[in-house]
């Protein structure tokens, strides 16, 4: 990809519109879920009393809404990035958005009206028999999760179809000519965002199959056709699906970084052998780390425990060495153009690195035995998602709306990006401190001696709210002109 390739060309206006819709809907969801997160933190701080009934409902909504919001915002961003060179079906993407909205509606209704609060926990008698909700609420919530899976299938199917058609087959879309014939350089190599779209589409499709493997028995159980789904099977399957989905978010979002950061560094990000190798390896390696969530399950076979430990490290290496180091090498000495986009993308790299490091520590068995049920885990995935994935997605939305609307950047925008970074880092740092001091996670009520961490986090949360309020307002004001520009086409 050239470093100054415009996002809009003569043929991709329709895809850019649906991509903007994904980004706005996905990040809008993230913003609302973030406010719910603030409620939970205020409860932890002892400054706002949230009943346990509502706390777990909010937690369920916050967790499921955040992951899917980030994933679909990232899908939209990646679709926009590759649409300059790959023909994607905008019809399929719109259908995917309707499925996502339907899924969100079902989950929200199950939680708000049905009082569903089981999160993603499926060990019998969950998810159907809760103290506050009926079996119907469990079925509706899980129907929502199922429809989310269908939405992922539609989007990933459209991506895979588009990239393989554009590149003349799966091998070329996966840049295998670089991988297997590195000494015969081809002038027409698959660019990194297209490679990433192909890899993540394959992962997404396989992941949904895994999801169906446990969702179908769960629905059979609700229908009375199966008495109980095996607990160990359920837990493995739900984590293999859910953990992979959480990981997938950052890989999809990384596609936006590969496609956008070079424009601010004024250097191309090439598909070198390490890039091709790392991203091809992710197709397999992403499916191994889930098992580190089951170290404390005595019934889990030893082999899977070893796999969890080794798989977590193996899964982290390609992304860390290639993308994170690659991004730093890209910007080092390049005279990086500082803007909210580049600031947030570099912040995202930091979040990915530190969130990933937190996960790797948790994946070490002796540490896991002490830390896994503490806020350390919440710290790790908030760093990874809020500082990592969300920053990438906000950065790309800022970039695409600014580019299409020809809006001028304001100095305050850059300050807001830095403020978001300081707020986000401060907030997750306090979560890490909390975990390091063994404050348990998933507790609705925090003892007085634990409340100091959440209280100290409040100024940082306020910084994030102010920063996102400013940046969000700026971006929303640009969405209309950007949208209209996609109808006019390139000037």
């Amino acid at each position, binding site marked *: 990809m050239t470093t100054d390739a415009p996002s809009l060309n003569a043929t991709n206006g329709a895809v850019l519109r649906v991509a903007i819709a994904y980004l706005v809907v996905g990040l809008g969801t993230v913003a609302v879920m973030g406010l719910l997160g603030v409620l939970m933190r205020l409860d932890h701080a002892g400054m706002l009393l949230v009943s346990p009934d509502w706390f777990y409902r909010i937690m369920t909504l916050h967790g499921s809404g955040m992951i899917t919001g980030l994933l679909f915002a990232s899908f939209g961003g990646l679709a926009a990035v590759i649409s300059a060179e790959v023909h994607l079906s905008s*019809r399929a993407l*719109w*259908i995917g958005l*309707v499925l996502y909205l*339907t899924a969100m*509606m079902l989950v929200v*209704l199950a939680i708000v*009206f*049905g009082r569903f609060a089981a999160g993603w926990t499926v060990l019998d008698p969950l998810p159907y028999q809760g103290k506050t909700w009926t079996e*119907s609420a469990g079925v509706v919530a899980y129907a929502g999760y199922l429809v989310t899976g269908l939405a992922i299938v539609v989007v990933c199917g459209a991506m895979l179809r588009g990239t393989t058609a554009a590149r003349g087959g799966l091998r070329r879309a996966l840049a295998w000519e670089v991988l297997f014939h590195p000494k015969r350089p081809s002038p027409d190599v698959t660019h990194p965002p297209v490679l990433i779209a192909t890899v993540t589409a394959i992962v997404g499709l396989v992941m949904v199959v895994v999801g169906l493997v446990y969702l179908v028995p769960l629905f059979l159980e609700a229908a009375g056709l199966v008495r109980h789904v095996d607990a160990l099977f359920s837990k493995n399957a739900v984590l293999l699906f859910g953990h992979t989905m959480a990981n997938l978010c950052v890989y999809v979002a990384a596609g936006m970084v590969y496609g956008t950061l070079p424009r601010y560094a004024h250097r191309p990000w090439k598909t070198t052998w390490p890039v091709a190798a790392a991203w091809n390896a992710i197709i397999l390696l992403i499916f191994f780390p889930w098992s580190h969530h089951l170290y404390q399950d005595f019934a889990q076979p030893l082999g899977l425990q070893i796999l969890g430990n080794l798989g977590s490290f193996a899964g982290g290496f390609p992304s860390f060495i290639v993308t994170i180091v690659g991004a730093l090498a890209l910007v080092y000495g390049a005279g990086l153009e500082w803007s909210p986009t580049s600031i947030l993308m570099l912040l995202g790299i930091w979040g990915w690195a530190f969130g990933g490091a937190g996960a790797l520590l948790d994946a070490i068995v002796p540490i896991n035995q002490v830390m896994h049920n503490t806020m350390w885990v919440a710290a790790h995935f908030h760093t990874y998602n809020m500082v990592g994935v969300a920053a990438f997605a906000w950065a790309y939305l800022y970039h695409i709306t600014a580019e299409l609307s020809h809006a001028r950047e304001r100095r305050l925008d850059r300050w807001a990006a830095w403020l978001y970074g300081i707020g986000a880092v401060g907030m997750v740092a306090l979560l890490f401190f909390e975990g390091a001091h063994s404050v348990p996670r998933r507790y609705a009520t925090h003892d007085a001696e634990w409340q100091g961490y959440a209280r100290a986090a409040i100024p940082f949360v306020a910084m994030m709210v102010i920063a996102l309020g400013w940046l969000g307002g700026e971006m929303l004001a640009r969405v209309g002109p950007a949208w209209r520009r996609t109808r006019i086409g390139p000037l």
Partner: protein
Amino acid sequence: MPSDLVTRWEWHPVLAMGVSVSALGYAAIWWRQEVRSRGELIAWVGGLVAIVIGTSSAIDPLSDERLSIHMVQHELFTFVAAPLLVAGMRPLTLWLLPRLAAPLARWGHALSRPRTAWLIAGGVLWAWHWPPAYDYALAHPTVHDVEHATMLIAYALYWSPLTSFGHAVAALRTDAVRVVYLATGATQSAVLGALLAFSRTPFYEFYVAGPAGADFALRDQQLSGMIMLLSGSVVFVVAAVVTMRGE
């Protein structure tokens, strides 16, 4: 009882006449079209079949005993018959439009404006599910028929902006607005379904006072809410698949 659904039918002369005239009239108009779409013919006939099933099969008498069956009946009118009739409406509209008085055509156009159609469909759905109205309709057969007719018409109006046949209806022009229209339409009916599905008390006195009792009425109400919530979601997704054009 499941066998009743297949073997027990009731003859309603007025309805039979109306459906027959509608089918034959439509077939004659369809045949005269320069470009004939089999899909439109199948959709129109399918819509009429759904109305016949909803009104003449065992669903109708059983709906007085079970809210869940009554819900299936409503779904047949609003989510099956109405969209199918609208999908087959083009030849009829093209034939009717030059023959309609201008004010009538303007009214048709005005009522099919997306916001108006959305509000009418939502308003009719919620108004009839208001417990006093629902109980009153169940106790008065004529009002009950009016309830079903208004639901059918209201949802025919709702689905019409998703089609495009000339200037006869105020069609939604882009995928983005179609998504918003479908998502908000799905949500308003799903909220009603959720209220029924997750309520801890039965809403409708007619069923509570029935022979099966209050406990059964509550369980049946929860089932009816689930039917509305889940089948409605499926219908709106299918509508999206059919109406998205990649614009």
